[in-house]
């Protein structure tokens, strides 16, 4: 079965005062249909740039992104990006946000779909609320629901839960896993949080510092629900941290 996403030899250089700053240096990987791929790397290595290119929002200097056999030219509603800083429209209610991307539906269908997905992420009763009336965790749920309601095949997640406190982060991960078990999506997620990656991903790519290359790949064959304090997850976490140059954790 051919890969859902094929990323070939991506190269990206940003202009800087001291000449070009090469960020991505020949990145290649594939993502299978229904797979959850996590990309971890040190801060500033270009994780978000890589994800933005794969989602079609930024252009690369060289290389290509192929989705379902077609070269990606621009973003599409087939692959929704959940951004690091959140992009729920603050001037729309939760329901209006969820209805935003529902083109080609009758107004009544839009409302019922939006309400169903709001309920699915635990926002029942908050459909008429504006984003500034919600907590950080609720905002993330709204953003997730807005992405899911258009039934995308791919979710691109850029540090999706980084701004949340540890407890809410864990809850949101569990929520995401519950949804992924029910609705099939291919997920490409970048994160600096190794625990998050080991909790969710089927495969983990570790990026090197700039110029960024793929330094290591970890297949995660552990079944869900994973015991985060269990020896397998801890072993995996230690191995990834070692790749990232954080040996003290394993000492």
């Amino acid at each position, binding site marked *: 079965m051919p890969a859902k996403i094929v990323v070939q030899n991506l190269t990206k250089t940003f202009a800087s005062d001291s000449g070009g700053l090469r960020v991505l240096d020949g990145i290649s990987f594939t993502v299978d249909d229904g797979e959850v791929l996590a990309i971890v790397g040190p801060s500033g290595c270009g994780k978000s740039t890589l994800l933005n290119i794969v989602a079609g929002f930024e252009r690369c200097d060289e290389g290509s992104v192929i989705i379902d056999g077609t070269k990606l030219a621009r973003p599409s509603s087939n692959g929704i990006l959940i951004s690091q800083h959140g992009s729920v429209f603050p*001037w729309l209610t939760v329901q209006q946000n969820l209805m*935003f991307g529902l083109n080609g539906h009758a107004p009544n269908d839009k409302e019922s779909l939006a309400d169903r997905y709001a309920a699915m992420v635990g926002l029942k009763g908050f459909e008429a609320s504006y984003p500034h009336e919600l907590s950080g965790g609720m905002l993330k749920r709204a953003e997730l629901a807005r992405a899911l309601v*258009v039934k995308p095949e791919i979710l691109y997640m850029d540090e999706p839960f980084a701004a949340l406190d540890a407890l809410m982060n864990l809850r949101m991960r569990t929520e995401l896993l519950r949804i992924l078990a029910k609705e099939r999506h291919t997920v490409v997620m970048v994160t600096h949080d190794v625990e998050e990656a080991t909790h969710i991903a089927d495969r983990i790519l570790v990026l090197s510092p700039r110029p960024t290359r793929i330094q290591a790949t970890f297949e995660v064959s552990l079944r869900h629900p994973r015991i985060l304090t269990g020896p397998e997850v801890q072993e995996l976490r230690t191995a990834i941290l070692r790749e990232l140059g954080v040996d003290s954790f394993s000492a």
Partner: protein
Amino acid sequence: MTTMRRLKQALPSLTVIAVLIGAWWTVVIATGSVIFPTPWQVVNGVGELMRDGTLWQHIAASLFRVGSGFALAALIAIPLGLWMGWTRGAFQTLNPLIQMLRPISPIAWIPIAILWFGVGNASPIYLIFISSVFPMVVQTIAGVHTIERRYLWAAANFGVSRYTLFRRVVIPAVLPQIIVGMRIGLGVAWLVVVAAEMIALRSGLGYLIIDSRNAGNRYDLVIAGMVMIGLIGLMLDGLMRLLERLKSVRWRYAR
């Protein structure tokens, strides 16, 4: 409870005003000025204008001119600012012209206003228009230019048309800054009403001020006119600020 809280909130600014009025009164009495009025003489002057009915005529005339000039400016500035902010070509073509016209004082436009529109309501309306249109254009352009990329990307991600993107993302995202531009524009409109009504008109608070000075140094009425402009300006700004309470705009304000 709410009234008490409002009074408590207003207390510091009311105290500042009371102190200034007290200082004004003291200085006038201490210097024994026969021309410059005390606050009480100003109050009497306002009473005199209210009794003979001219105050309401002046206020109505000024409100009509400020309202017309400002409304015309808003009607042109907001769509123009949105267009210039959104379309690079429009910005590059028109921005130099806007920046050239913007610093010209409304007073410099008086001879041209008389030449074009003659002596009547049209000239002061034009002056008020020309002075309040630019702050609104500039503020709206800045609003469009500073829309956060994440919102534009999110909209593009859902595959909406350019028209929908403009209508459902750009305009609501810029609305808080449009309101700021309108508040600045309205303030400037009141600022120039005195100069605008100097153009041989026989009504308006600006005319009241000039006429009171020319016809016998009635500085109590001069200051009465100034106070009325200030109070009406404050009330109109308060009305404009009600727009900030809209839930679809509230997100932009921390408090």
